[in-house]
């Protein structure tokens, strides 16, 4: 029988890492509630979805956006790995690659918005409100991630991170994976399911 007083290893992560995890948990709850609201309105709406003659979302651009964001998680992971290994050049290159892919995602989202705005706005109906709120909130998270990446890159260029001290890189990488993960739910809910 295992003793209750069995010694488990101490928590090896820094408080800041746990703080980022808690932040991600609260943000994930926010997205979960928004998506739950979206599906609630969808199932309460009689007839076609999207409503009021709004065309089914086109998938080409969102698929490219998804691929860009999925791909960006690879250099984000590599940035953390390179920081752990003390590879300064690899760290800078990986952060730059993540930044470029994330910026490309954001540029495509702005393009997508300019086209969507011709069809419906947040004021059109509940679908429009939820569509722009959810995608806009995700876009805001991407912007926050890009700001964090630029900040981390600036410090990386000054050689601020070592194999022993690179918590900021870990946290930014974790946040970026979350931004990518949330997008998959947004993409499936708002683009893929209505288009099927």
């Amino acid at each position, binding site marked *: 029988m295992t003793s209750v007083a069995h010694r488990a*290893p101490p*928590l090896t992560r820094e408080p800041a890492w*746990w703080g980022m995890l*808690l932040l991600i948990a609260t943000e994930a709850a926010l997205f979960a509630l928004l998506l739950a609201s979206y599906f609630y309105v969808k199932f309460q709406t009689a007839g076609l979805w999207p409503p009021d003659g709004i065309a089914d979302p086109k998938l080409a651009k969102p698929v490219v956006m998804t691929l860009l964001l999925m791909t960006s998680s690879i250099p984000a992971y590599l940035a953390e790995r390179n920081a752990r290994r003390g590879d300064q050049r690899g760290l800078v290159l990986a952060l730059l690659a993540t930044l470029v892919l994330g910026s490309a995602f954001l540029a495509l989202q702005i393009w997508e918005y300019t086209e969507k705005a011709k069809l419906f706005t947040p004021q059109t109906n509940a679908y429009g409100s939820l569509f722009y709120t959810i995608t806009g909130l995700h876009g805001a998270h991407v912007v926050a991630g890009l700001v964090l990446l630029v900040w981390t890159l600036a410090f990386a260029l000054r050689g601020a991170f070592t194999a022993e001290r690179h918590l900021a890189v870990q946290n930014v990488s974790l946040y970026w994976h979350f931004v990518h993960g949330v997008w998959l739910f947004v993409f499936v809910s708002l683009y893929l399911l209505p288009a099927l």
Partner: protein
Amino acid sequence: MTAGRRLALAGAVLAAPVAWAAQLVIGYGVEEGGCSTADPQLAGLDVANVAGVVSVVALAVAVLGGLTALLLLRRRDESADPRGSVHFLAGAAAMAAVIFSVLIVFGGVATLVLDPCSAG
């Protein structure tokens, strides 16, 4: 750090938010299920009473989580927590317990004061 202490920490961090989420989801489920008939009952119980019981249980769980967090804060073992992560998480859990308890109370009061089966 003992396994029991680690379990208590996990419970303290998760208790309040999970209790609030349960109140929200079960509350919606109870009202959706119970209010669909002319006589708003669920398994022979009044819908408002069921929602009230759910809120009380959720509040109890959240408060228990908060008390566990306070206990962990008071009994700090620096040798077993050199980075201060346990202390930080216990502090966050205590704050979360307060916030989520307020949320649960507000949600519970709404179900008790307002008619849960009102169309408006």
